[in-house]
Every structure is written in C-alpha cells, then in structure tokens.
C-alpha cells in the first residue's frame, strides 16, 4: 500500500503541491486529474522518488520511500514520465529488456526473456521489436517505453500522461492493457490523465487536484458528476451515460 501523507512541494515561493494526503488502494487504477498546473505530475514524481518533497512523507508498505534501497524500490514501483528522448542507438527489444535491469543488472536470464516477450506481446510490438527507437514515431516510442515498464513487473505502475502522442486506437489499447494488468495480474496503476473521459471509463478511483490542493478523492462514480466537476474545473460539464459509461460532454460548455 502507498500512503501519501501531508506532502508539500514548493518551487521558489509557489507551492505546487500543498498538504496532500492520499492512500492508493492496492489492486485499482487510480487516476490523477485536474487542470493544468494542478500539481499532478509533481505529486507523482514525489511518490516515485524522482523528486524530493519539502515536507510530508510517502510510505510504501509502512516504510518511508526515502529509506528504500534504489534497487529494491525499482522492483516494487515503476514510473514513466512524459518525455522520453534518448539519442542512444537502441532497438525496441533492447529498450524493453532494460525493464529487467533491477533483477538481472544487465545479464538477462531465460526468465527475464520471458517477461520481455510477454511485455512485447501485451503492447503488440512484435512486428517492430528489432527496429531502432530513434526511427519510430512518437506514439510507437511511447508504447515501447510502456512495454519496458510492464517488463519491470512491479506491483505499482505509475504513469505520467501515457496517452500523450497516441491516437484513439492506441489510447484505448493502452487503457485496456492497464485494466488487464490490474484485473488479471493484481497490479496497482496510478495514472495522470488529461482526458477526463478515459479517467471516467477506465479508473476505479479518482484523485482530483487543483492549485496544488486535493479537492476530491473517491470512487469514480462519486467524482464524475456535474457538481464535483464544477468544483475541479470551474466548468459546467454535463455528464451523459452511454453504453454504461459516464461521458463528460465538455466541448461546448460554458467556462
């Protein structure tokens, strides 16, 4: 279980995240939503130790994440940020194999290869596994990096706007894969999403931030309604039910 306790981060005088406390329920998809600059990515970075908090703690299994050894932490929690640029000559398969580094330290065993194959299959990358990542489109590269995180086989998978650069088909494909990771393999996924409808359709819980403060935290059905969305986004957003999914129709609403 990951517990976020009274976390605060300031850049200069501005608090980007202010006194946020959230518990991430195991075996769920939790979406972080909120307007631009709400502090979603910063919060995710602090949970994954990429960024140090000014005050407050993050606990993984009752132990402060700062006390975890880097190598052990990498076997429990993985994080993928938005921009993944590298000028290294690397094939898709080699990139995904890096996901096994916490276990094998670069010397792949047969078991590691099995995880890599599985991740490639999950992300439908069989055809391009021998292509070089600097020759792929942004979306294809994004999928390769997600496959790396899947091969890392951690209990917690943290993703910062993984749907960036992806078309509708691949966005849906990735959200379905995340759902499968949770439902079939018992993983816990925490994801920063910009598209509220993906959050509504695929997540179990939603954490809403605004100006660095926690405004809503609860099961998806409690958040996806016009009243709660008004508080988060300052917009009147009608919610319609289509095929059992709650869809926010915000495209022509008044701000």
């Amino acid at each position, binding site marked *: 279980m990951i517990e976020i306790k009274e976390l605060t981060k300031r850049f200069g005088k501005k608090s980007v995240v202010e006194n946020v406390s959230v518990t991430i329920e195991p075996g769920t998809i939790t979406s972080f939503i909120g307007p631009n600059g709400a502090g979603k990515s910063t919060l995710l970075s602090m949970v*994954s*130790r*990429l960024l*140090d908090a000014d005050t407050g703690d993050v606990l993984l299994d009752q132990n402060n994440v700062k006390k975890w050894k*880097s*190598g*052990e*932490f*990498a*076997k429990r929690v*993985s*994080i*993928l*940020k938005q921009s*993944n*640029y*590298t*000028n*290294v*000559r*690397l094939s898709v398969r*080699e*990139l995904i194999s*890096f*996901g096994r*580094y*916490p276990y094998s*330290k*670069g010397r792949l065993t047969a078991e590691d290869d099995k995880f890599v194959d599985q991740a490639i299959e999950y992300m439908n990358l069989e055809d391009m596994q021998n292509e*070089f990542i600097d020759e792929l489109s942004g979306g294809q590269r994004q999928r390769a*990096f997600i496959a*790396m*995180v899947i091969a*890392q086989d951690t209990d917690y998978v943290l993703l910062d706007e993984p749907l960036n650069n992806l078309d509708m088909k691949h966005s849906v494909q990735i959200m379905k894969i995340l759902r499968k990771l949770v439902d079939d393999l018992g993983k816990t996924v925490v994801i920063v999403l910009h598209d509220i409808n993906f959050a509504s359709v695929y997540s179990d819980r939603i954490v809403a931030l605004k100006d660095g403060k926690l405004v809503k935290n609860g099961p998806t059905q409690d958040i996806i309604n016009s009243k709660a969305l008004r508080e988060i986004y300052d917009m009147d957003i009608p919610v319609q039910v289509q095929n059992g999914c709650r869809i926010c129709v915000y495209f022509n609403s008044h701000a």
Partner: protein
Amino acid sequence: MQKNSTKLIFLAVLAIIGILLYAFYDIKGGFDYAFPRRMVRIGAMVVTGIAISYSTVVFQTITQNRILTPSVMGLDSMYEVVQTLIYFFAGSMSIWVLNHYLNFGAAVIAMVLFALILYRFLFRTNKHPIYLLLLIGMIIGTLLGSLVTFLQVLIDPVEYLSLQTRLFASFTNVKSELLYISIGILFIAFIYGYRIMGKLDVMSLGRENAMNLGINYDRMVMNILILSSVLIATSTALIGPITFLGLIVANLAYQFLSTYKHSILILGASLISIIALVGGQFFVEHILELRTTLSVIINFIGGIYFIYLLLKESRSTR
C-alpha cells in the same frame, strides 16, 4: 550489417599494424637508442587514447549530449594555469619543472581539486546541476584562460618559449617514469569502470528512466564526473591538452558501432583514438618530418568533423 565483434577486431588489427609500423619503420642507426624511445611514445599514445575516449564517452552519457567534451569544465585551462604559475613564480630551472614527478603531481592534483571543489559547491546548492556545471565551467575556463594570457605577457620571453612546449600536446618528450604512474591511474579507473558499465548503459536512457530502474542517479553522476576529471587530468599532465580528440573518436565510435553498450563503445573509441594518435604521429614524424605537431592536425581534422556534427545534429532535431 557487420557484427560489432568483427568491427572491434578490425579496429584492433588496424591499431596493432599502426603500432608496429610506428615502432619499426625506418629504424636505422642505433636500434638500441631509437626503439625504447619509440616504445615510450607508443605507451603514452595508448594511455592517452584510452583515457580520453573513456572520459569523453562517459561524460557524454551523463550530459546526454554528444558534442561536449570534459574540457568544457575548464580542466585544460586549469592545467595551463598551473604550468604558467610555475614558470612565472619559480622559473624553468626550478625543482617544480625539473622534477617530473613534482610537476606531474602538481598538475594532476590541481585539476582534480578544481573539479572536486566545483562539483561539491554545485551539488550542494543544486539538485540537477549538469547544465549549470557546464556554464560555470566554461566561464571559469575563460577566466583562467585570460589569466594565463596575462601572466604569459609578463613572463621572460625565453622562459615563455620553454613554457610553450608544455602547453602544446606532444608525444616527443614524454617521460617514461610518468608513463608508469599514468598506467597505474588508468588501471584503477578501469577496475571502477568495470563495475559500472551496466549502470552507464541504463543512464543513457536519461535521469528519470535510470532512476526508475533503480540507479542512484545523482550520486553516479558525481562519481562519473570525478572519474572523468581524473582521466583527463592524467592525460593532460602526461602529454598536454588534447581533449578535442575525445569528441571525434567518441562520435566515430557511435557511428561505427551501432550499440548502446558502453563496454563496446569505450573499447571501440579507445581503439580509434590509438589508431588516430599513432597514425597521426607517424604522419607527422615521417611524412611531414616534424614540420608541424600532432595537435595541429588533430585540431584541423577534428574541427572539420565538429562542424559536420553540428550540421547533422541541427538536421536531426528539426
């Protein structure tokens, strides 16, 4: 595409041919006189080639930039400052010049201390200091360069001539006793390097991905900066400033060997720089008959290659 092992063997054969050619070509008169001297030069070229390639490749990995060399941190300038100060205050007949150990030691220690102080200061005040480090390094480098020029203007012209030979990279007056020390330092660097090769591969994915995979990134950056400063300091104190070479050979290695593995890249870059140094020195000694120095040729060819790289990078990032 050829396999990397074949390419490495090809490079190694080329390097050995170059070394043999340089060692035995036109060796008339006193074999006993010429041969040991040539061997010392070859030793110096091998040591320098490896040190420069090694430090440049790892430096480019942590900066995620392929047109930088460790010299942008001002280490070369620091070397010039030390030598100039020695000649300015103590003179060419002082023990600081005549005792090679003392001169070598002073230069290496000054450069490494300079680097350590810079890193200490930056890593304490800043979280991700690479770019700040580069900027400050460049500014301090320029400042030291101006200081050197100022002192050189004031120095006695005869002393200045003697100083000048130390400020140009040269293999012709390498001291064999310093060569052994350099080999020792290189050996220690390699033992450390052997343990971090895998981590370096992961670090080429960038800070966040490397941290995700369990690398203690910020501490590794510090360690690698120290490693590459020690290597640069050693090679500079041994033969003079020649870090531009690192930029060329590292990039040639990336192009020639399409791999992300640092063990292969560093080996390849080292072999290429040995070929370049031995071949270049052969060219300078036997074809140009010492009418110019190796560093002039390296800077000339390196400069052209650098412009090519800049053009290529600007195309690929557009």
